[in-house]
């Protein structure tokens, strides 16, 4: 019973050639059946490679799928399921897979040993970057990206369960079944397209029936439980804290626009069972990487699951009984088989020739294996014709997921691999090969035990079933890591690391596992050394005369298999990366010609373009004119608004703000400063006392997260005795600035009634029946108000305000005009409040109340914060008529050297002021207030400008402030 359906042929292409496979095939199985042994070129030496394995650990048969934007490099041919029209390409070969010019690297191998590049390419000094590195970069790498944006769809999901069972082989199936019957909410995940693990690849029976039949029955029962979710094609890729797992699900079939390709799962599990089995490993002997050299279990698996006979003349080279099943099954399928076993007492298990006490010492065949040399115990060498060499050096348990949180596997001599100790990871049970239960019967029993253990930990009462009848032999093994013979013996096929490389590392003092890994790159390839780590450790232990058990291991890192950036970053493409915040009158602004720009998380109107206007500068100048000459309206809803209430709210704000809020009367506003604990200015903005126990605190747009942490730490952490509640109310309100000499006229026309409102006062108002607040304040220096209405009225209100403004000869204004208006007035933004400035630096020192007691008061008096020589806010005007100014230039005394010592400061904000008729800037200047009237050099080498500027007071327009108070 194979896993393919010969009634469903599927046609795909490999390097342009049409290949036929069947439903259920992988690219590797179909290519093998079609006789295509050469599938790839190796990473460093560009050696011809075929397929080694049949799982996700495949180190050699990496291919590129698709073309154009969908081009996906480095896919394991062993994991890609066929679909009609699939395009598969070989990679890392030029001009063709069969003839690759970089194969010349292989000839130079004696000079290209581990780390050779650290010892050369150093002269002349610039040659590395100019000459050598480009050559090395082009030679390295595997597949290629298309260069086109990936617009395919992937998705992410969260899931929760009582028990996550990882791996649906015999152990995992029994663990899931045992826990499911006890009532646990179970997720069973397996990376295969079909569940069953190794059982799908073997001829042995379980419970007296073919293993695949038994698997189907168990899966049928599991699927019938409402508390079980089955996730095939899902690789659990990482274990994270507190029972969080990452997993990647591949969706089968051709790409379709309406369907994701992959789903990245975050699974929160109270308990887990790790039943990920083991993968077979190679033996390091010369020529162990030719196309046709395969793992013994893979050869068996291709036969049983895919109906593919990997060779007609097969040599088995194995040090364990388990692998002899490959010889038995291939011989039974009609192949001519010779088994080579280093154990002198090895016994044949079927109808094949056996060379006991012998080793494979060489192979031949450039793009496909042709001959194999074996050496018997007496040292005699014999050459055999062979098209397939099935190798088994034993099995490496897949313990990686257990180690992501820091647990270490331990060497088990009987298993011949590293396994997990029972309680190595909290809330995770181990079953099957990962804890050393390697026979089918032991794995089934261990699965039952692990499922029962997990169920009990969940407070359930499992009834462990009797394990089904199955093979009890784990297969005796005699460790054999490497064969002593001349020639290159590969340890890590994925990175072309040989025994000799590891021995060299040891000789150069880099024999500790982590050093050897970094120096030779063994274990750093796409398979993270799953197949090669134990062999490398054994070679190193040998070279450094240590016991393998004491040599230590390298650290397994997530992900267990490589995860595409598009899957783990699903949803992040385009605008999905961060929410776009839109003010409530966004559409109204667009309808009036607004050009929107990104302002932190918000989209805001930069300017409102009118017919005939050439661009932003013209619109901006007009809008400034509206405010200075008539009336302008602007959407300021994006300002962060905290609604603060409670009997102690005034006391709380008095400790938060540098000026006294206690004394504020209901209906009064106060411009306030907030310092950080370290005494620097954090925010400036108005505080409004709406009622005795009710305040609004305004801070800059987008500052909510930082402000909320600041306020809540103070309220809940510092002063939990204060009765105060804080509500982040930004998006509950729409707020509009109405500024200009005719602001009052405008409001009289749109409000239900216009209250008499003095500067820095607030009152309740209505507009068309909507209840809101009118605040008398100004960020433009003109007679100004801000009208706050519930957000749902924002759109209508803004339209009405713009209409009214236009009727009075004004109009809407945007961020550009707002910026000009505030620079003319010397008002601040975060270009000046840059996190390094103190209140005094910005001319606001008088706003720090002398009695202290507010956040930041104590550290604001540190010596360097009050010493002379600090950069202070000033204004700048150009000396040359008509010159422009830009932010970012640095200031020097004319004639002084352009060096950091003489760097006096920089321009923070600059504009072309239509009001003043010249460019105007703000700057932070060393001892600036003592330099008013000086002429300085403004150097902006980055933009290639160099000019003289005159230092002025920050306020360049209406210095007395009469217009705003009028």
């Amino acid at each position, binding site marked *: 019973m194979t896993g393919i359906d010969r009634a469903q042929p599927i046609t795909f292409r490999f390097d342009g050639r049409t290949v036929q496979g069947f439903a259920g095939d992988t690219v590797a199985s179909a290519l093998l059946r079609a006789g295509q042994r050469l599938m790839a070129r190796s990473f460093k030496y560009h050696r011809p490679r075929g397929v080694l394995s049949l799982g996700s650990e495949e180190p050699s048969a990496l291919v590129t799928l698709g073309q154009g934007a969908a081009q996906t490099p480095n896919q394991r041919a062993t994991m890609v399921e066929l679909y009609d029209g699939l395009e598969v390409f070989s990679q890392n070969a030029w001009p063709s897979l069969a003839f690759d010019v970089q194969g010349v690297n292989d000839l130079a191998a004696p000079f290209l040993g581990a780390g050779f590049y650290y010892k050369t390419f150093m002269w002349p000094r610039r040659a590395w970057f100019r000459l050598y590195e480009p050559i090395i970069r082009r030679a390295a790498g595997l597949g290629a990206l298309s260069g086109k944006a990936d617009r395919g769809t992937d998705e992410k999901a969260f899931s929760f369960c009582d028990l996550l069972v990882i791996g649906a082989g015999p152990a995992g199936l029994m663990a899931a079944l045992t826990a499911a019957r006890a009532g646990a909410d179970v997720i069973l995940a397996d990376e295969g397209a079909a569940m069953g693990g190794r059982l799908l690849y073997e001829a042995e029976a379980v419970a007296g029936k073919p293993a695949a039949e038994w698997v189907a029955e168990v899966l049928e029962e599991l699927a019938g439980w409402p508390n079980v979710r089955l996730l095939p094609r899902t690789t659990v890729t990482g274990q994270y804290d507190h029972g969080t797992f990452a997993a990647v699900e591949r969706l089968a079939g051709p790409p379709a626009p309406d369907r994701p390709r992959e789903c990245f799962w*975050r699974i*929160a599990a109270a308990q887990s069972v790790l039943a990920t089995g083991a993968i077979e490993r190679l033996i390091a002997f010369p020529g162990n990487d030719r196309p046709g050299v395969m793992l013994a279990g893979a050869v068996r698996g291709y036969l049983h699951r895919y109906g593919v006979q990997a060779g007609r003349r097969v040599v088995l080279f194995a040090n364990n009984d388990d692998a002899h099943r490959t010889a038995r099954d291939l011989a039974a399928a009609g192949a001519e088989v010779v088994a080579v076993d280093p154990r002198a007492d090895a016994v044949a298990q079927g109808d094949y020739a056996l060379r006991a006490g012998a080793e494979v010492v060489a192979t031949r065949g450039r793009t496909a294996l042709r001959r194999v040399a074996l050496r018997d115990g007496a040292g005699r060498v014999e050459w055999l014709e062979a098209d397939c060499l099935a190798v088994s050096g034993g099995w490496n348990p897949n313990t990686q997921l257990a180690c992501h949180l*820091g647990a270490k596997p331990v060497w088990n001599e009987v298993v011949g691999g590293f396994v997990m100790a029972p309680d190595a990871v909290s809330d995770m049970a181990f079953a099957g090969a990962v804890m050393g239960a390697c026979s089918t019967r032991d794995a089934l029993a261990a699965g039952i035990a692990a499922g029962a253990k997990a169920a009990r930990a969940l407070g359930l009462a499992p009834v462990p079933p009797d394990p089904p009848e199955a093979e009890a032999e784990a297969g005796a093994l005699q460790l054999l890591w490497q064969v002593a013979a001349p020639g290159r013996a590969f340890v890590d096929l994925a990175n072309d690391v040989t025994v000799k490389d590891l021995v060299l590392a040891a000789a150069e003092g880099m024999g500790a596992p982590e050093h050897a890994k970094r120096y030779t790159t063994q274990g750093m390839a796409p398979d993270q050394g799953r197949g090669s780590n134990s062999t490398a450790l054994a070679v190193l232990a040998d070279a450094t005369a240590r016991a393998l058990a004491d040599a230590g291991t390298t650290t397994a890192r997530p992900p267990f298999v490589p995860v595409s950036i598009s899957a783990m970053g699903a949803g992040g493409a385009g605008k999905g990366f961060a929410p776009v915040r839109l003010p409530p009158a966004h559409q109204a602004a667009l309808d009036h010609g607004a050009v929107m720009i990104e302002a932190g998380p918000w989209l805001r109107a930069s300017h409102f373009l009118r017919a005939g206007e050439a661009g932003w500068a013209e619109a901006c100048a007009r809008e400034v004119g509206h405010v200075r000459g008539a009336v302008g309206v602007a959407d300021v809803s994006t300002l962060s608004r905290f609604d603060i209430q409670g009997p102690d709210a005034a006391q709380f704000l008095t400790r938060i703000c540098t000026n006294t809020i206690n004394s504020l009367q209901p209906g009064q506003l106060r411009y306030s400063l907030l310092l950080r*604990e370290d005494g620097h200015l954090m925010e400036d903005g108005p505080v409004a006392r709406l009622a005795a126990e009710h305040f609004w605190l305004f801070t800059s747009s987008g500052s909510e*997260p930082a402000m*909320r942490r600041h306020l809540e*730490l103070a309220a809940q952490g510092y002063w*939990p005795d204060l009765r105060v509640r804080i509500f982040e109310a930004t998006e509950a309100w729409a707020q509009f600035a109405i500024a200009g000499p005719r602001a009052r006229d405008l409001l009289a026309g749109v409000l239900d009634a216009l209250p008499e409102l003095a500067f820095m006062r607030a009152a309740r108002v209505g507009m068309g029946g909507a209840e809101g607040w009118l605040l008398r304040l100004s960020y433009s220096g003109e007679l100004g108000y801000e009208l706050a209405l519930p957000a749902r009225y924002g759109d209508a209100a803004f339209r009405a305000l713009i209409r009214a403004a236009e009727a009075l000869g004004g109009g809407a204004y945007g961020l550009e005009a707002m910026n000009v208006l505030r620079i003319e007035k010397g008002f601040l933004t975060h270009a000046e409040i840059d996190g390094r400035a103190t209140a005094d630096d910005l001319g606001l020192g008088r706003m720090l109340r002398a009695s202290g007691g507010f956040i930041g008061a104590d550290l604001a008096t540190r010596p360097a914060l009050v010493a002379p020589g600090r950069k202070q806010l000033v204004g700048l005007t150009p000396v040359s008529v008509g010159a422009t100014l830009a932010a970012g230039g640095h200031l020097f005394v004319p004639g002084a050297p352009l060096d950091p010592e003489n760097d006096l400061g920089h321009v923070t904000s600059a504009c072309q002021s239509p009001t003043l008729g010249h460019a105007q800037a703000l700057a932070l200047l060393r001892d600036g207030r003592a330099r008013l009237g000086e002429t300085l050099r403004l150097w902006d080498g980055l933009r290639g400008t160099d000019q003289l500027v005159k230092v002025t007071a920050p306020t360049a327009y209406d210095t007395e402030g009469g217009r705003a108070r009028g």
Partner: protein
Amino acid sequence: MRLICPNCGPRDRREFSWIGAASLLDRPAPGGDFVAWLHLRDNPAGPLEELWLHEAGCGALLRASRDTRTHALAPLTLAGGAR
């Protein structure tokens, strides 16, 4: 990472913001040693008393004891006491 909020139960770490070491709660009175309080840290490799804000949840400021070597974490408590 999953944190157990006393108000909301176990929640993903994404709902929380780390605020700082719990020593922040011992804010000096005016005139006290603010330099040491704000800057110096025990910074243990081991159990750390710390503060989290359940920002995308109930809004409570929470106190945790977490081992910085393993991230082992007991259920959190309200930093400001029951409010």
